[in-house]
């Protein structure tokens, strides 16, 4: 296996609120292999987005890192000063977000928003930056790029806005692209186009991608590896083919069985009963135990550690013996 380009080690994070501190991530560790796509899946509130934002320290001011490191090229990004981080943001590690419409500034032209990214990191004339910006737009499949540079985000459709975001993220050939639910706000056909685009560009540029989604079907389409998050903890981490062929954690199994499928028509979709613990709720034992059909008394008493199995990791006592 190649050397990972990014390592998240033992990351714990909480939000300081008026009602006390609310832990949202518990000792999360994973590594992102070079040139691969890691999908982070989980329900809303499972900490997917928060862990991604923490990589670039883009968290809300009330977020507090309790422990852990994010190692990129031998440097712990969490310990870096704002100025060092600025050089990494956008140029080495770029990010695209869930709602492309609101993620672009409504009163600046697309051209301005693209060129400023280029000029923030490279010494470039306005003209050269504009040329490069037009090139980037063409690269992400936007026609009449020159003309569209002078337009504003509201003149673009959602899918087009996401293409612009992608162009912006790829502007400086980053090592890593963090895509935070890039297709959630788009309709299905556009979703497929954007996914294909991301995969294509990833292959061309040899980028590594952290792909955050709550949609397992999407994860299955793009991912090389999958990290399943639940209540801020890693439940299962495995190469995508293995995970989808044989999910080990009951939660992952539940998620996969609740997927709609064309072959099983006219059936009620199976669901995982119950709801995840609320953030801040103190859970003794495995956070998934209350919803787990295979839970034993042990599961309610102490939280299982991650059990390693060949190339995968599972947080479940059922896997302890093997």
């Amino acid at each position, binding site marked *: 296996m190649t050397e990972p380009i990014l390592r998240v080690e033992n990351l714990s994070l909480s939000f300081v609120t008026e009602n006390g501190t609310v832990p949202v991530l518990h000792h999360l560790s994973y590594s992102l292999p070079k040139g691969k796509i890691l999908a982070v899946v989980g329900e809303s509130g499972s900490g997917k987005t928060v862990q991604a934002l923490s990589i670039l320290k883009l968290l809300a001011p009330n977020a507090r890192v309790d422990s852990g490191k994010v190692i990129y090229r031998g440097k712990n990004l969490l310990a870096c000063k*704002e100025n060092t981080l600025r050089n990494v*943001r*956008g140029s080495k590690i*770029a990010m695209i*977000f869930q709602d492309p419409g*609101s993620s672009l*500034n409504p*009163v600046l032209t697309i051209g301005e928003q693209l060129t*400023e990214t280029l000029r*923030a990191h490279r010494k470039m004339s306005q003209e050269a930056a504009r040329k490069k910006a037009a090139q980037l737009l063409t690269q992400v499949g936007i026609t009449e790029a020159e003309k569209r540079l002078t337009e504003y985000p509201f003149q673009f459709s959602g899918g087009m806005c996401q293409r612009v975001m992608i162009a912006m993220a790829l502007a400086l050939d980053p090592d890593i692209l963090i895509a935070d639910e890039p297709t959630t706000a788009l309709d299905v056909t556009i979703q497929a186009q954007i996914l294909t685009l991301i995969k294509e560009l990833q292959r061309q540029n040899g980028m590594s991608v952290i792909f955050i989604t709550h949609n397992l079907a999407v994860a299955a389409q793009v991912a090389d590896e999958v990290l399943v998050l639940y209540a801020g903890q890693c439940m299962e981490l495995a190469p995508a083919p293995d995970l989808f062929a044989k999910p080990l954690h009951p939660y992952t199994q539940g998620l996969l069985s609740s997927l709609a499928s064309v072959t099983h028509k006219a059936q009620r979709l199976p669901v995982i009963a119950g709801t995840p613990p609320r953030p801040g709720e103190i859970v003794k034992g495995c956070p998934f135990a209350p919803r787990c059909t295979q839970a034993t008394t042990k599961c309610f008493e102490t939280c299982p550690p991650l059990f390693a199995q060949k190339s995968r990791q599972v947080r479940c006592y059922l896997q302890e013996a093997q």
Partner: protein
Amino acid sequence: MTRYILRRLCLLPLVVLGVTFLLFFLTQRLSPEMRASLYVKDPRQMNALEEVIRQYGLRDNVFKQYGRWLKNVAHGDLGYSPSANMPVAQALKQYLPATIQLAFVTMILVVFFGVWFGAASAVHKDKWQDIVARLISVGGFSLPIFVLGLLLLMVFYGQLHWFSPGGYSIQTDIIIHGAGFKTYTGFLLIDSLLNGQWRVFGDVLSHLVLPAMTLCIGSFALMVRVMRSSMLEELSKDYVRTARAKGLSKYQVVYKHAGKNAIIPVITLAGIQFIRLLGGTVIVETIFDYPGIGRFGVLAAQQLDIAGILGFSFLVAILFVAGNLLSDILYTAVDPRIRLE
């Protein structure tokens, strides 16, 4: 956009008609004799009242009288103002530039400091900058204009003799009424510069400082609040996160990205405040004896100068609509979403 402006312009006559008719109707509460007596200077002429009433048709139906007034206005004749001792149109023409000048200088102060303090307050939320800005803003809200005006007058004029209230100095008056002084715009601040009269410029400016400071405090307080909350809202938006994720400097994120959006409501507010100042400098102009239309309106009202009051409100109504229009146009200049629709 053009259609929008045209629609707004259609509103103009409606507002002007509404305001003036209302006032006209109110003046009818006074008996024809009372209204006629305004034009009579000497008590011995009291028996001529009946003739004045007949001559001006003061006993006619209110609509007929109003129609007559409108017809005259259409010909540029707003009547004669006894309180100003000149035709109303001439009085307005003479006093309006001074008021615009005052309102303009005030607005520059308000917008500049308001935006600055408001933005700083939002960026440093709950830090000392924020607390200072909020204290000043609360103070500005709570301090009535007439109290502040009198305080400033007492301190800077009464004690320190830094600035002067009332009319311009005699030298200034001589120069501006002299043959060599050309009137280009009617705004003394500009005209004095165009004539190369530095002393006049200084004198005019020194007469502007205290009234402008007094006027600016309330609007400033409001501006700080609007800018602060607008900026706070913008700073929490997704595109700000994008801007940070792109590796832009804090300055660019705050001022270029959030600032450009946050300023939009401020511009609307500035437009409305500017108009309010034009019609609402009454108290300040009275306190500082500043020769603007506010003081003209007060004198007219005090002396029951009906033509003067009508002329004053006619002008203020026009300014009101025009100012709102101006603020809408400015709005589109910063917000492409409106401009391009």
